[in-house]
C-alpha cells in the first residue's frame, strides 16, 4: 500500500495542483484519491494501468471540486498563501512571485477545464499524449488538438496577464 502511495504521489500531486491550483483542498483530494483507489481495488479489473486508474480518480475528484467552487460563488483565489495546509511549491521563493512561472500558473487556472486537464497531464504530470488520451478517455487526435489549442490560449492569457501586470 505504502509503496503505491509513494510511487504515485508525485503524478497525483502534479495533476491535482495543476487543475485546482495550490489551494488547501488539494491535500485532502490527494488523500481521498488514494483512499478511494484502495477501497475500490477489488473492482479494479486490470484493463488499465494502476497509474491510469489512480489519476482518473484524481481528475474526477478535482472536477467535482471545481464544480463545488463554481456552485459556491464562482472561483475564489486559486493561489493561496502558504500555510499549514499548503502543498509545497517547487523551487518557490518570495522573488518568484510575479515571475514567468507564476504567470503560467495563474494563466493555467484561467484556462477552460477541458484544455487545462490535457495540459496538466501532458506537460505537468509528464504523461505521453497516448497515456493522456487513455486517462481522459479521449481519442489521441482530440488530445493533440486540445493540447495545441490549449497552449495557444494559455499563451494569449499569459500575454494578457503580463500586460495587466506591467500596467499596474
Amino acid at each position, binding site marked *: 500500500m505504502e509503496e503505491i502511495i509513494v510511487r504515485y504521489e508525485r503524478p497525483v500531486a502534479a495533476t491535482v495542483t495543476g487543475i485546482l491550483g495550490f489551494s488547501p483542498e488539494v*491535500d485532502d483530494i490527494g488523500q481521498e484519491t488514494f483512499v478511494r483507489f484502495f477501497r475500490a481495488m477489488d473492482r479494479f479489473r486490470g484493463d488499465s494501468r494502476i497509474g491510469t486508474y489512480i489519476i482518473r480518480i484524481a481528475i474526477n475528484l478535482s472536477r467535482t471540486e471545481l464544480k463545488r467552487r463554481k456552485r459556491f460563488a464562482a472561483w475564489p483565489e486559486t493561489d493561496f498563501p502558504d500555510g499549514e495546509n499548503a502543498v509545497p511549491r517547487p523551487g518557490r521563493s518570495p522573488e518568484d512571485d510575479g515571475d514567468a*512561472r507564476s504567470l503560467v500558473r495563474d494563466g493555467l487556472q484561467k484556462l477552460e477545464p477541458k484544455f487545462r486537464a490535457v495540459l496538466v497531464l501532458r506537460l505537468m504530470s509528464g504523461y505521453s499524449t497516448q497515456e493522456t488520451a487513455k486517462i481522459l478517455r479521449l481519442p489521441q487526435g482530440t488530445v493533440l488538438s486540445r493540447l495545441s489549442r490549449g497552449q*495557444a490560449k494559455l499563451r494569449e492569457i499569459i500575454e494578457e496577464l503580463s500586460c495587466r501586470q506591467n500596467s499596474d
Partner: protein
Amino acid sequence: MDKRLLRLLVRSLEGPLKKRDRHRLDRALSESEELRRARDEIEAMRRDLASGAADSFRSGFVGRVLAGLEAADSEDGRQMLFYAGFRKVFWRFTLAALFILAVLISYNLAHSELLPANDLLYASDQTVGEFLNLPIF
C-alpha cells in the same frame, strides 16, 4: 498569425511531423520572426509548466492516507454492524407482525358477523354456473 501554423508548431513539439508538414513549418519559421517568437514562448511555457508541477503533498502524506483508510474501514465496520443488527430486528419484527396479523384475521373470521367464515368461501349456484360456462372449459 496563421493558427494552423501555430498548431503545427505545437504538434512538432509532440513528435515527428509528416515530411510535407515539417517542410512547411521549417519554411514558415525561417520566414516569420513572429512564429519564431511564438515557438520560443511556447517552449518556455512548457518548461515553466513542467518545472512548476508539485512534486509531493504536505509531508506525512502517506501516514494521512493510511489513517484515512483506517477511518474509512472502521466506518464501514460500524455501518455493517448497524445493518446486520437492523436486518435481524427487521425479520423478527416482520415475523411477529405476520403472526399477530394471522391471529387477528382468524379471530375476526371466527367471531365477526360481518364476514362469517362460511360466507368467505361461498359462491352461489349462478356464479358457479357462469364460471363453468366460460369458453375456457
